[in-house]
């Protein structure tokens, strides 16, 4: 659906050249939710703006739905853009227009007749759950509602692709979740390809199928969300993964709290994919001569299955504990000894 090849963007500033996007190759499939994560200044916004040519590439090419974006004439580009919706961190609604008229705006741009426009606007208002607010002005809406208007507006012309630039970064956690749910629904029901950039791993975890990690203009790691969570290669990726898999307290705190108290071993179990639901602990207690103490845990749901860590304290004979570890590994759960031995 989207193909980036050797894409670069260099800005000429007073302080010299800034390479915001550095030779990126990337393929995004039809119907998937593709996340791009990176810290501030990594070049995420520049990359997503290159997709619809809000920024023109210094080198390389962008192909969307078979069209080479950088080769299009001005007019062709405008038409191509009508097939690519975009939503923004700060919503970017027209404050002089009501909710309805904001949603109708892209339809006006396309030249859709008034009657059809009204019909489509009503559909969209229902789709994003803003019934009864059509006559309000953006200043009368909450952040979450504004983003719903933004989404409705982006979907007005039935685009094939939706670009989201930090779409939830200005929202509180609960509102973020409701907007993410809406995006997931849209992806499932309309088969829309969604590209979203964020600096929150939580967002990637919750809705993305695949993820690319960006650092200094380059994609340093990419893959299935679960695979990246399982085996983050780069240090940067590991940091992001920790955001969602590790309990608030770190391993060090665990050692401090329980290390001296006579608990022999502390194990970290890492669940990946479908294994999280197995009655693992129950089986250990029943089948082995050990006592098990659950210390901490955090299991998150991703689009490809659950993922998370569980910290347990185990007491018993050393040989028995070794058998427990082997048993856990047999269940496709990764084990790491945090303390003991």
């Amino acid at each position, binding site marked *: 659906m989207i193909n980036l090849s050797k894409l670069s963007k260099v800005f000429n500033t007073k302080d010299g050249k800034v390479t915001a996007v550095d030779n990126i190759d990337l393929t995004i499939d039809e119907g998937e939710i593709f996340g791009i994560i990176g810290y501030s200044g990594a070049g995420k916004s520049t990359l997503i703006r290159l997709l619809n040519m809000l920024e023109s590439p210094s080198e390389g090419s962008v192909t969307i739905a078979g069209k080479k974006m950088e080769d299009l004439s001005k007019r062709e580009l405008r038409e191509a853009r009508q097939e690519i919706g975009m939503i923004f961190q700060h919503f970017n609604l027209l*404050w002089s227009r009501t909710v309805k008229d904001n949603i109708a705006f892209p339809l006006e741009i396309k030249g859709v007749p008034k009657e059809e426009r009204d019909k489509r606007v009503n559909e969209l208002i229902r789709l994003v759950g803003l019934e009864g607010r059509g006559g309000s002005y953006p200043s009368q809406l909450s952040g979450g509602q504004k983003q719903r208007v933004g989404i409705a507006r982006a979907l007005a012309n039935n685009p094939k692709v939706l670009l989201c630039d930090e779409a939830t970064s200005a929202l509180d956690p609960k509102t973020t979740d409701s907007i993410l749910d809406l995006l997931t629904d849209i992806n499932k029901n309309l088969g829309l390809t969604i590209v979203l950039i964020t600096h929150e791993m939580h967002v990637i975890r919750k809705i993305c199928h695949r993820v690319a990690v960006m650092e200094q203009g380059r994609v340093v790691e990419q893959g299935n969300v679960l695979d990246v969570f399982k085996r983050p290669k780069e240090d940067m990726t590991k940091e992001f993964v920790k955001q969602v898999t590790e309990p608030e307290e770190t391993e060090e705190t665990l050692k401090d709290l329980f290390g001296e108290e006579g608990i022999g071993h502390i194990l970290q179990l890492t669940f990946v994919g479908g294994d999280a639901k197995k009655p693992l602990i129950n089986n250990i207690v029943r089948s082995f001569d050990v006592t098990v103490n659950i210390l901490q845990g955090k299991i998150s749901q991703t689009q490809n299955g659950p993922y998370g860590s569980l910290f347990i304290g185990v007491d018993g004979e050393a040989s028995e504990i070794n058998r427990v570890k082997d048993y856990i590994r047999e269940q496709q759960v990764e084990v790491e000894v945090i303390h003991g031995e």
Partner: protein
Amino acid sequence: MSKLIAGNILLFPNVNWENMWEATQETLYMSVVALLFTFLFGLLLGLLLFLTDRGNLWENRIIQGVTAAYVNVFRSIPFIILIVLLIPFTRIVVGTMLGPSAALPALIIGAAPFYARMVEIALREIDKGVIEASKSMGASNSQIIFKVLLPESMPALVSGLTVTAIALVSYTAMAGVIGAGGLGDLAYRDGFQRRNTDITLMATLIVLVIVFILQFIGDRLTNRLDKR
């Protein structure tokens, strides 16, 4: 009623109400017609200033430079000098140097750059993100101008126009220099030169009333338009 007239005569013994009314009409005529053209030219100049600026839709160094120079020059010339400088030009355009129409070219040329700067400021206040969002939807430049830039800056455009209208009313007072008439002319010639303080006072009062009405209408309109 007769009491009122009697009072008027007592307070303003030298005012010739017919002349006063005529002067008021002349002032209104000059202000309104000049405002109309000032709005048009000022809006065009302001849009040009904004659109040709760096990073905007029609980025163009040369046009930007020329427009800015024109605006700055004509905004800096004191009106009373401008009106005299423009006498030959007015002769050609209006065909006569008599009556209130003779003041129009100077009024418009003097006020349009003034308004243009306010238009430019109003347009600059528009969130860049909104323009970008419109581009991302595939809007053409003219759609961005007419559906985004102008509507989004409308309250500021109207309040700028109010300020300009009030400035125009005071400019018309100087139009007497070239014999264009109006309240300023009356106040100066019949009032000041002939020592009829009451005529000066009355003319001032009428100008004040006009200004207050303009301000009132402008404020109401601005508030009504502003949905932020």
